């Protein structure tokens, strides 16, 4: 199973990952609406970085939680797909898994789909803090 791996010690908080992700997926730069979120641990001054992006695990809790089949497992690609017309915006999936995100502007659920095999976040990370093992 392939997913974006995060190497905390290399992250420099540039937000290029969430920037390019949102640009690619939403057509606008909107880090808060991206499939990947990088935030700082607020417990310490200049604390460590945390990354939240689908790791294709959690027993697919998002899919299980959805009452409407708006989230489905794409076996061939090995990723979760969001089917917006079926979404009722109930928000249950957001509670089911911390790696499920919301684009508040378009009321869209955002889950990493590895950019169809060429994840932009890993490509744009200037420090190699995000890596991807290659084709699944």
């Amino acid at each position, binding site marked *: 199973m392939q997913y974006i791996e995060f190497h905390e010690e290399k992250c*420099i908080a540039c937000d290029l990952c969430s920037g390019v992700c949102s640009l690619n997926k939403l057509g*606008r*730069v909107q880090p808060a609406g991206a499939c990947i979120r990088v935030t700082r641990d607020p417990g310490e001054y200049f604390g460590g970085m945390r990354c939240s992006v689908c790791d294709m695990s959690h027993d697919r809790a998002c899919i299980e939680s959805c009452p409407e089949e708006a989230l489905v497992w794409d076996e061939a690609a090995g990723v979760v797909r969001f089917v917006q017309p079926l979404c009722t915006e109930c928000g249950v999936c957001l509670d089911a898994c911390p790696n499920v995100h919301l684009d508040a502007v378009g009321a869209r659920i955002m889950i990493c789909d590895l950019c169809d095999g060429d994840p932009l976040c890993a490509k744009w990370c200037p420090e190699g803090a995000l890596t991807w093992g290659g084709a699944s």
Partner: protein
Amino acid sequence: MTYGGYTGKFLTVDLDSGTCGSLPLGDDLAEKYLGGRGFVAKLLYDMLPRGIDPLGPQNVIVFATGPATGTMIPTASRIAIGVKSPLTGAISASYMGGHFGPELKYAGWDGIIITGVSDKPVTLVVDDGEARLIDAGHLWGKDTVETQRLLLKELGDDFRTGAIGPAGENCVLYGTFMHVQHAAGRGGPGAVFGSKKLKAVAVRGSGGVSVGMPTGEYIAACKELHDIIMEDPVRPAFRWAGTTGMLPVVNEAVGLPYRNHQDDKAPDVGPIHNDEIAKYVQRYEACSGCNVICGSVVEFERQGRKYRSERIEHESVWALGPNCGTVDLPAIMEANFVCDHLGLDTMSAGSAIAWAMEMTERGLLTREDTDGLDFSFGNADVLREAVLKISAREGFGDVLALGSRGAARKLGKGEEYAMQVKGLDMSAYGPRAFTGMGLSFATTARGADHNKAFTVAAEFLGVLGDYDRYSLEGKAHLVKTMQDSTAIIDSLIMCMFTVDLGISVDLYARCASLPTGMSITADDVYTIGERINTLERLFNIEEGFTRADDALPARFATEAAPSDPGAHTLDIAAVLDEYYAERQWDAAGKPRPELLTRLGIA
């Protein structure tokens, strides 16, 4: 607003009534002034009555992003904070990196215009389209870092924050506004916040910024720009050394001011070499959208006091170090830390202390004048104590809180040892060694700022030309064109470091065109930059500034740096007419009517 890259509106905040509103941004303003510094110039010129007290209720604070801010254009994280400067009385825009500017954009605002004065301490909270003022009584008196920590706890850690410290509250004339440890500092915007009782600003943006071209094309174009920086041979120096890598090189070239600019070379900068600073680094830090990565977090201690902070920058290590005759790195870093926490500009603080040191050396100040503090050059112990006193405006600190020139005027002596232009203290490049910097210091609207035409790139680093750094030949033209192109960098807003990292004027034009969808050429860059510089000049002239204010401290024309074997001096008056002619200003330094017509200012 028909262009991409902008949100199309400014948030307006009236502290008198406590109300917030919205001001649409017109195409005309975007086309003529682009953003950032250009917006600050236009808005302050139009809004401020002439001759106001910068610390009075009529001053206006303008936060302005640019069209590139938060759009994936490399390094476009910065935000400008404009005020009529309390330190200089001139127009002033200060900049800070980090994540605050993009967040404001994502909240739906190109900027904020703040008017009036609050009767009690307040924090401005901008939560997407909603803005409100909340009580900040419990934060008043707290330092910048503690204030921001408490705000995040109160509001949620997905906010981006900025705050003034006690120095700003006490209207120290070079008080800063700090976002984390990024300072909008020079010229003292923090003092204006203090005078308005505006303690902090917190922003959260869940929205986005659209750009003026198809997504796929835009991503590819931005990647090209990022790759240019990534592959530039100079980048590893920034990535590893931060900004301090230049320091030993400039010192070796006899261009690093030492002991309040009496000399241009410190005997030994080994102890403050970037190799030494690097030993304290814990992790690297970048601003939003940046792959230069000049920042890092350090941990150090001094006399049993432990610190965790952002790594010290070039100008700060110089101002509080060699300029004060010391290379005691922990003491310098400690003073820098205290400045950041209390909210003072490290450069003006260092310059004020260095002035007191030269005054002491010359017997013009005694320990009786300085509350018993020993302002001898090289006394590193006095740095922290002086900064604490300045911030609290206690005793002699109240004198130094006015800046080097203000202190001299208050005491009625020693103005010739105040190393400043228009009241803004000079930077870490000796004008005698880099005459272009000298001309830029003398003529820049906000005063002696090294970042308004960084001619060292062309005079010394060989990046933008090959000029004789001691000669004035060609410098009038060089300074004029660099001031104009820099105004665009400050308006997009990108980071000045991109100048050294392969981003040419053609590419700045591209960085302006890509997000906006405008067709901006290199010629347009110069024209918009010229318009901004000219409007800033008009502002100053209407405030009473004259040709006489375009002058360097007298020492540079008469005394050579003792360490300089060539014994160079610099008389900037010799080139002023040529510079004015380049700018189409008359002999008094006033923009000619035909210039104003050409630029569409009249």
